[in-house]
């Protein structure tokens, strides 16, 4: 460190990469001393002139204020007060266009000067050395001082840093063309600036204070050297004139050879940078007791008659500055606040000067030509050569245009200081900085969205847990009741189960999944074959009673008016069953067993409502989908609509990587009423769509909703397969959420198109099934070729979907056969999937 200090003291200056040499255009505004302007007719003092929160308003409309009287008082969170720049009457307090590229209105105090310019009572400190650290910081704070170099960072925050500061760096570089406000201030008030520096030294006790001035300001350098002569710890360093050497990070590199690590602030490496104007304001505040109410502003450009610097009261309208200096606008006049490189054009001249306004530039079209048309990028990399941050602006531009945000981050977009050097040198006149600004804004927005989504997810998870707990409690209660059922009844059910079991066992006894499904089928059959199911109905009624409250609550939340009461009740019961199944799955990770438990208990409508909970979850996650749900409601089957919502939720959930849940869905599907299942499949597709915002697709699917039972069966099979896949995917994939979404679209899209066919003609259906199978095969092959895991998953989905479809026509013919066939098909699909996985 000693060595570094010695090097600096010997006058060593490091260099920065890149940089440009635009015409300085500074001479025209340095011929005359800083002028005083007549008082304007009104002052528009914006409450927010810095980075941080507004101060709290402490004056009222109609109140008389004195010059220097505080208009706001700080209220934490980096808030800094503003003061009355002159004495007068507060004529209004209202939002006015702000000195910001957007000119968004900010609350402002409008003062009509009384012309007397009476100061309020000032409290100059005769001996600042006697002040404690906190007292000094408080004076700086109460005086409303914020960084006057451009950013407007509250100075008291910087001055109060807890970090050890080795170098206090004074930014007097003023590298932007045209601007000479700091230059003139140094020429005229070098002593005041040095006094300000000494106050800072008192606060921060740095080892060395380095004043960096560009070599195009010899007068200022001389003045500062003269003023700093008495203080050994201040050295004036001349840096070569390169834009943007006045950037905070660039100046640190120039003067100390060090770099501020990305994402850190200078104080982290023991540096603190202050602008000369700010330091002068600190001096004024402490030694004269004057708050920050005026600043030097360069008024320049070829349309200005008297180019030069003026002392402008904060809140002075730009119009007043222009009028006082003489202004003859040209057609398509631009008025820039700040310099030609980083300044922004003003939409109106009725905007007040703020603490960061260092220049008003009103150029004609000769000195600053209007930008030409953007031409093709020839990758000449002149931009990279000019970039002071060693970025690759050309590459960033391509990524920004194609919205590849990951790549932008990879190429360090956020280290771009938006100095504009790249755009300045671009032979194709590509507005590079503008592309970066837009990309940065979009990325920030995306990140905010992500945070929001994560919070929603957390909320949803918590809610889901609670609901499951409640459901389980209900289920436990309900379980006790069936125990009281007559033996005869039980026997009936058991017989049916056994019958189907034995049948399916003949074909494929090993597949636990198939067994579960078969059992579910049996259940269905039992229900349909036996005309007298009054006892079952009774049992259901009992369950309904229990679940009513729960159900109603849910119905309310979902706004599913269409579901009839009976359905709702049964739905609740079903939900309970499913919840149980889920739990079982969670505990054992053996989905088969979970399914066996859950499936027989479910009744047809059960599945519909079971998923209500899930649908709700979905809602929580994405409020926007409400509409899609609403659209699906008018389809013929109301239940279907309900299920649609549910299914969508399912898809969502799958994306959120709840494996067991997905399996639970798989279980519920076979039991579902056919229509419901159709709708479910549809709805899942919809969910997908919602994510991808393809509205036309939604419509198409809605059309397919009112299909008959056969279609329903097809879709049911599909849905089941999908659910299975989703479960598998999750285990396989790291980055599950997006992939799952993608896969569900693909999966859904195909089956639906096939569905109508099967309803028309069974043969056709069979053909379609065959096609689907072929597709699945193909997909499997593709899978083998591809490395990319997401593609694999997609493909495997296709396979899985295609298979179950083939079952559809059969199931309508003969349910028993269908069950068997389904089991087989599913097993096949599984095999294929596994093969695919093995290959991958």
């Amino acid at each position, binding site marked *: 460190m000693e060595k570094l200090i010695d090097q600096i003291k010997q006058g060593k200056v490091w260099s920065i990469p890149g940089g440009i040499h635009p015409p300085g255009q500074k001479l025209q505004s340095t011929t005359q001393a800083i002028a005083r302007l007549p008082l304007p007719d009104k002052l528009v003092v914006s409450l927010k002139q810095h980075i941080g929160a507004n101060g709290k308003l402490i004056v009222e409309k109609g109140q008389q204020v004195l010059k220097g009287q505080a208009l706001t008082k700080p209220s934490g969170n980096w808030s800094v007060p503003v003061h009355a720049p002159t004495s007068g009457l507060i004529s209004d307090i209202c939002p006015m266009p702000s000195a910001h590229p957007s000119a968004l209105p900010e609350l402002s105090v409008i003062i009509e000067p009384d012309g007397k310019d009476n100061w309020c009572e000032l409290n100059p400190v005769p001996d600042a050395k006697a002040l404690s650290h906190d007292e000094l910081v408080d004076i700086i704070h109460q005086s409303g001082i914020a960084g006057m170099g451009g950013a407007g960072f509250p100075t008291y925050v910087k001055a109060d840093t807890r970090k050890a500061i080795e170098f206090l760096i004074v930014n007097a570089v003023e590298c932007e063309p045209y601007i000479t406000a700091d230059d003139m201030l140094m020429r005229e008030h070098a002593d005041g600036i040095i006094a300000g520096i000494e106050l800072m030294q008192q606060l921060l006790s740095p080892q060395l204070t380095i004043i960096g001035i560009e070599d195009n300001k010899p007068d200022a350098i001389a003045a500062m050297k003269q003023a700093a002569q008495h203080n050994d710890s201040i050295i004036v360093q001349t840096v070569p004139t390169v834009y943007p050497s006045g950037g905070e990070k660039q100046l640190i590199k120039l003067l100390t050879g060090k770099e501020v690590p990305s994402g850190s602030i200078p104080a982290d490496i023991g540096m603190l940078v202050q602008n000369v104007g700010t330091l002068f304001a600190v001096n004024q505040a402490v030694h004269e007791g004057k708050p920050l109410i005026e600043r030097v502003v360069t008024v320049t450009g070829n349309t200005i008659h008297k180019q030069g610097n003026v002392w402008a009261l904060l809140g002075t309208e730009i119009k007043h500055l222009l009028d006082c200096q003489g202004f003859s*606008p040209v057609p398509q006049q631009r008025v820039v606040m700040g310099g030609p*490189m980083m300044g922004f054009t003003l939409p*109106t001249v009725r905007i007040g000067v703020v603490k960061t306004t260092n220049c008003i530039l009103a150029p004609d079209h000769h000195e600053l*030509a209007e930008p030409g048309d953007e031409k093709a990028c*020839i990758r000449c990399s002149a931009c990279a050569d000019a970039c002071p941050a*060693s970025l690759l602006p050309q590459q960033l531009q391509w990524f920004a245009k194609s919205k590849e945000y990951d790549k932008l981050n990879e190429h360090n977009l956020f280290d771009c200081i938006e100095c504009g050097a790249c755009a300045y040198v671009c032979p194709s006149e590509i507005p590079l900085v503008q592309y970066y600004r837009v990309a940065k804004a979009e990325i920030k927005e995306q990140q905010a969205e992500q945070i929001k989504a994560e919070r929603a997810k957390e909320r949803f998870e918590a809610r889901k847990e609670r609901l499951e707990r409640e459901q389980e409690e209900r289920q436990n209660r309900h379980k006790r009741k069936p125990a009281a059922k007559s033996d005869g009844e039980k026997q009936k059910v058991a017989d049916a189960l056994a019958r189907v079991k034995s049948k399916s066992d003949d074909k494929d006894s090993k597949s636990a999944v198939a067994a579960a499904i078969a059992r579910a089928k049996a259940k269905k059959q039992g229900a349909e074959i036996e005309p007298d199911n009054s006892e079952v109905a009774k049992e259901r009624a009992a369950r309904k009673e229990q679940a009513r409250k729960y159900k109603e609550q849910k119905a309310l939340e979902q706004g599913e008016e269409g579901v009839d009461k009976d359905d709702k009740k049964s739905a609740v019961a079903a939900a309970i069953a499913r919840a149980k199944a889920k739990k079982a799955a969670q505990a054992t990770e053996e989905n088969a067993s979970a399914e066996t438990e859950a499936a027989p208990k479910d009744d047809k409508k059960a599945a519909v409502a079971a998923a209500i909970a899930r649908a709700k979850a979905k809602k929580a996650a994405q409020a926007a989908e409400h509409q899609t749900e609403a659209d699906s409601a008018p389809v013929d089957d109301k239940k279907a609509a309900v299920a649609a919502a549910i299914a969508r939720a399912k898809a969502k959930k799958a994306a959120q990587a709840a494996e067991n849940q997905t399996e639970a869905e798989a279980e519920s599907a076979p039991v579902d009423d056919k229509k419901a299942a159709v709708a479910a499949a549809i709805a899942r597709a919809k969910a997908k769509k919602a994510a991808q915002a393809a509205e036309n697709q939604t419509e198409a699917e809605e059309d397919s909703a009112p299909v008959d039972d056969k279609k329903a069966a097809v879709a049911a099979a599909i849905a089941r397969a999908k659910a299975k896949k989703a479960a598998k995917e999750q285990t396989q994939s790291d980055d599950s959420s997006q992939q799952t979404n993608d896969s569900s679209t693909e999966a859904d899209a195909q089956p639906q198109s096939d569905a109508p066919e099967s309803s028309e003609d069974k043969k056709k259906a069979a053909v379609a099934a065959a096609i689907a199978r072929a597709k699945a095969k193909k997909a499997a092959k593709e899978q083998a070729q591809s490395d990319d895991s997401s593609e694999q998953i997609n493909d495997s989905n296709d396979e899985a979907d295609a298979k179950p479809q083939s079952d559809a026509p059969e199931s309508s013919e003969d349910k028993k056969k269908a069950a068997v066939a389904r089991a087989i098909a599913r097993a096949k699909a599984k095999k294929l999937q596994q093969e695919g996985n093995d290959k991958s």
Partner: protein
Amino acid sequence: MKLTMASSPHNHSHKSLSRLMMTVIAACIPGLIAQVFFFGSAVLIQLVLALITVSACEAAVLLLRKRKVWPTLSDGSAWLTGVLLALSIPPLAPWWIIVIGCMFAIIIVKQLYGGLGFNLFNPAMAAYVLLLVSFPVQMTSWLPVSDLLASPISFSQQLSVIFNGFTSAGFSVDQLRVAIDGTTMATPLDTVKTDVAHHLTVAESMSKPLFNDWFGLGWGWVNLGFLIGGLYLLKAKIINWHIPVSFLASLAVCSGIGYIAAPGTEPGVVFHLFSGATMLGAFFIATDPVSASTTNRGRLIYGALIGLLVYLIRTFGGYPDAMAFSVLLLNMAVPLIDYYTQPRTYGHGVK
């Protein structure tokens, strides 16, 4: 008062695409003059043919793409492609050689890839390779320098050869290539290569009238012309030094090592640097910004590898010169090179 809004920066360096391209074209002039001086004014005929063809092709494709013709055509990039191709082919090549080359360069290599800035390959060099592979006889029929011609030919005769294949006296290009001593002349690079293959030493080969002490007659001057133009481009900051310097250095080092290893069969550093398309390639071809590497470190690698490939193909390959092949091969490597040579961003990789 209505104020105009614009996004910063509000200033511009006044560098423009067309000025950049025109400067490069202008920098070709010294080399062009040398070529005209030593190989006859037929080069100018080829140049005119090339300019007409590229303009027509570019305009046609732009019309098909429903773009404004003049703003794009006037950026000069197509003209530069035409100029470079015209300078690369034998001056007395039949007219359809340059026409086919220019059509291929503009329509296929440039516009079908999306136009300026999107082409993966250097259009002029891709066209050159197409021509060389498709029409090897016409593309290698370089005349010896005018001094060595048995029968010097006039401008009108050159015109006749280009468009009819024969002079008014009925001489074909092959007949014209017969030198004073009655032997058919090839380019110096070709001659050395053939002679070495026939177990002559380089010294023996270079004792032929085709050569002066150091390099082929005329070719050295042409290369010098392009070197001057290239230095001007460097000074005008149109191109960066990285590619030409690393290319020439790499070629020099390779040929130097070769010369030390086998002085009898290696023509040496100066011969390599001032023969064939070396200087044209170093400053005008390899530096094509669109298809070259875009990072400074990447450019060093890019240039060096081109130098290596040029040397290897010239020495061991089937073709006497290798600029086009080497540039195209490295064009393909550019994305990889760029990816691994990103500069260290400010504030990254520091404690």
